[in-house]
């Protein structure tokens, strides 16, 4: 189920240059949540190399996410700093991004950063919380938490409070 390996690289296997590109793009982070990279989030979908031209395909998270334009600019900047002048960033709509594409590593980084990672979807459907499961406090690991608001500081997060340690925290919503 975990499609952590979902970045396709359109190049011969073992090609060192595409490995290098993938590593470089692994440094591009979400401007709102700097601890996770675009690879951790599962929004990096494809890297292709054609002669000198690099085409990077990313997927939109939320329709109106204001971070997308910054992410595109950061991809261009990162690759240009590494000597790639001819870079195209494409945005793909389909298949629609889901938080299920977030890597295990990404989830752990979020938790360490103080954001509860998204739950896995159930039957391809999910809203804030899948029924019957609790959002676990990233501070004290308690399951005794409550939702304060279904929208937090950004569209992708909801605001929660831990009833055990009393800390408020962000929950990265399941989408």
């Amino acid at each position, binding site marked *: 189920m975990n499609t952590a390996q979902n970045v396709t690289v359109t190049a011969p296997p073992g090609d060192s240059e595409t490995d290098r590109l993938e590593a470089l793009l692994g440094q591009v982070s979400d401007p709102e949540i700097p601890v996770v990279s675009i690879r951790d989030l599962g929004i990096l979908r494809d890297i292709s190399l054609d002669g000198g031209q690099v085409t990077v395909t990313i997927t939109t998270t*939320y*329709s109106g996410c204001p971070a997308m334009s910054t992410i595109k600019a950061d991809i261009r900047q990162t690759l240009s700093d590494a000597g790639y002048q001819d870079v195209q960033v494409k945005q793909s709509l389909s298949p629609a991004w889901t938080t299920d594409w977030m890597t295990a590593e990404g989830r752990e980084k979020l938790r360490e950063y103080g954001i509860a990672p998204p739950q896995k979807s159930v039957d391809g459907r999910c*809203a804030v919380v899948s029924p019957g499961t609790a959002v676990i406090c990233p501070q004290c690991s308690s399951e005794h938490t409550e939702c304060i608001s279904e929208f937090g500081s950004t569209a992708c997060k909801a605001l929660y409070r831990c009833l055990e340690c009393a800390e408020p925290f962000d929950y990265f919503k399941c989408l």
Partner: protein
Amino acid sequence: MNSNSDNKEAGKQDIVNYAIALGDDSLTLGHRLSEWSSNAPFLEEDLALSNVALDFIGRAMMFYSYSGEAEGAERNEDDIAYLRDCREYRNLLICELPIGDFADTMARQFLVDVYDVGFYTELMKSADETLAAIAAKAVKESRYHLRRSEEWIKRLGDGTDESHDRMQRAFNDVWGYTHELFEVDKTEQSLINAGIAVDRPALKADWERYVQSVLKEATLDTPDGQWSIRGGREGMHTEHLGYLLAELQFMQRAYPGLEW
């Protein structure tokens, strides 16, 4: 590519116009919701309304950039949003109405959210791949929007006398604008027949059933539907759209070609 090339060609501009109309629905409602930024009753609600606004504006961007590409890349999404006047906008009238008070905003939002969940679920099956892909994103967001607006309707409807009365008045005031959600013209009907557009009249029964059950739980009466107003898809708007566009388009009108 398609043997039925006559149909295909005739439909091209119709698809562009259809996508623009869907973008117009999203942009006008998104802009209205954004008017709550820094004005909502409390902080969490302010963030919520602003985030919902962003989802709608994002949808508009996807619909507009698709229509721009489909018609030959002469206009981009900004040109389509900023450089058309009222009569060229094709949004459903309910989307352009002023935000009113919180009850007005939530009544309209709930009615549109129920409609959007039904609409985008169907649009996901569109023969047009891009429209189907946009719908697949939008439907997830709309389900989430609906959870929230529905909660508010129940809480305020079944709340104090004051909140009940204001919620009821809000539904009475907006109800006449809902009929248009389920009416299509000939061009749209031909897109429905081609499997591209959503058969909106077919959504009405489910929509009514859902809305009525929530209103009942909220101890509210379903308005009697004695009046109705229509015209958005033909470019015939209420007086409110002009004011909305005046604010939305001011910078591009005052400083054409401005970028930042």
